[in-house]
């Protein structure tokens, strides 16, 4: 496979170093598959020095909000975000799991008040790797599988 240059798009975002297999989930939760969006390129199982295999997502003409970056961190804590302008990487940073996750995750407990009433959800991160969070309201803990299913 030819070398995948992150600067191959003119303007937009390249999300690199996504753990292999999680790229589709990144596209899904960012809503990038919608018809009216810009071009999206997904590379899966690309060889990586750091991860062995990795996924890469390139999005043309779109930049990410802080909330979206936090979402990516929950799915792919190893990911790096490259912001591209005029074919050049103008900014590059590693995503980071925040200490408190507000609003972007549903609670997996069906009897939690947040699933019955209008409430902005809030979770405390107990462990970052592997990810484990505790619901501020019902105090139930959620691990990786449940977190992915409730993003």
């Amino acid at each position, binding site marked *: 496979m030819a070398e995948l240059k992150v600067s191959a798009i003119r303007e937009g975002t390249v999300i690199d170093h996504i753990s292999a297999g999680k790229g589709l989930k990144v596209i899904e939760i960012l809503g990038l598959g919608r018809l009216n969006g810009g071009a999206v390129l997904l590379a899966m199982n690309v060889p990586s020095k750091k991860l062995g295999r990795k996924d890469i997502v390139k999005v043309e003409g779109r930049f990410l909000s802080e909330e979206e970056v936090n979402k990516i961190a929950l799915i792919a804590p190893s990911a790096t975000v490259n912001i591209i302008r005029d074919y050049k990487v103008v900014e590059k940073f590693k995503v980071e799991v925040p200490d408190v996750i507000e609003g972007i995750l549903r609670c997996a407990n069906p009897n*939690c*008040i947040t699933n019955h009433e209008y409430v902005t959800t809030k979770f405390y991160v107990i462990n970052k790797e592997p990810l484990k969070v505790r619901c501020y309201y*019902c*105090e139930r803990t959620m691990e990786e599988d449940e977190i992915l299913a409730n993003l």
Partner: protein
Amino acid sequence: MEWKGRDIISIRDFSKEDIEFVLETAERLERELREKGHLEYAKGKILATLFFEPSTRTRLSFESAMHRLGGAVIGFAEASTTSVKKGESLRDTIKTVEQYSDVIVIRHPKEGAARLAAEVAEIPVINAGDGSNQHPTQTLLDLYTIKKEFGRIDGLKIGLLGDLKYGRTTHSLAEALSFYDVELYLISPELLRMPRHIVEELRERGVKVKETSDLEAVIGELDVLYVTRIQKERFPDEQEYLKVKGSYQVNLAILAKAKENLKVMHPLPRVDEIHPEVDGTPHAIYFKQVFNGVPVRMALLGLVLGVI
């Protein structure tokens, strides 16, 4: 720690110092109450008890505590008689009720409801049970009872018997006891063992934990035996319930193997897990435990109101 205005939602929010302070305050109020017969600390204050699901004894205990502090009580005992039935949100109910009162006690079938109420309300909120999550005042009165009987909590061997899987009271009691130098015996049918993550957490916090399904084998070592009911309503399927139903009972025969000063506790109500013949023995302290709920709740109400 500033107590005035504080919410009492989860035993997780308490440090050991907080727990000790509540227990000392309860002790002081109980003594004052005995001497004076009636206290006036909360005169002119109003407690609202919002019981979205019925729990008569917990509600009466809070109401009694507020009256004994000289305060007044308003509230409802079940949601079906209120505008909640018409679809009012918890948020709106709380925003409304806080206009009428100085402190709120809430019991709700959904986990996290008490935390949400506390977020919404400007006045202090006390959790009297939210689904299968927390019931912090029960844990505090359990600790108060142990301390009153033995003069201490450190150094005791405490057995938790019964449904340790679904039992909310045993989870938070075990968690609170991990602040102390105690040995815990977790005694339950195989199907109802304490969740792994709680046992691991206890061990990480330095508590000696022994798990067994054989009460007879360990009863001779215990200072406290905390018995819980198997709650049919918590079981996801009836077959599982039938397998463990009636699998243990504390009676005179088994107590013959116990230490002379073993104390038997129970959060009540009971079904058949403690035979009534035990009631008359010095082992039984579960009705004293009920009484102890009042000074503990007086302490909490007085502290969060900032009047004691």
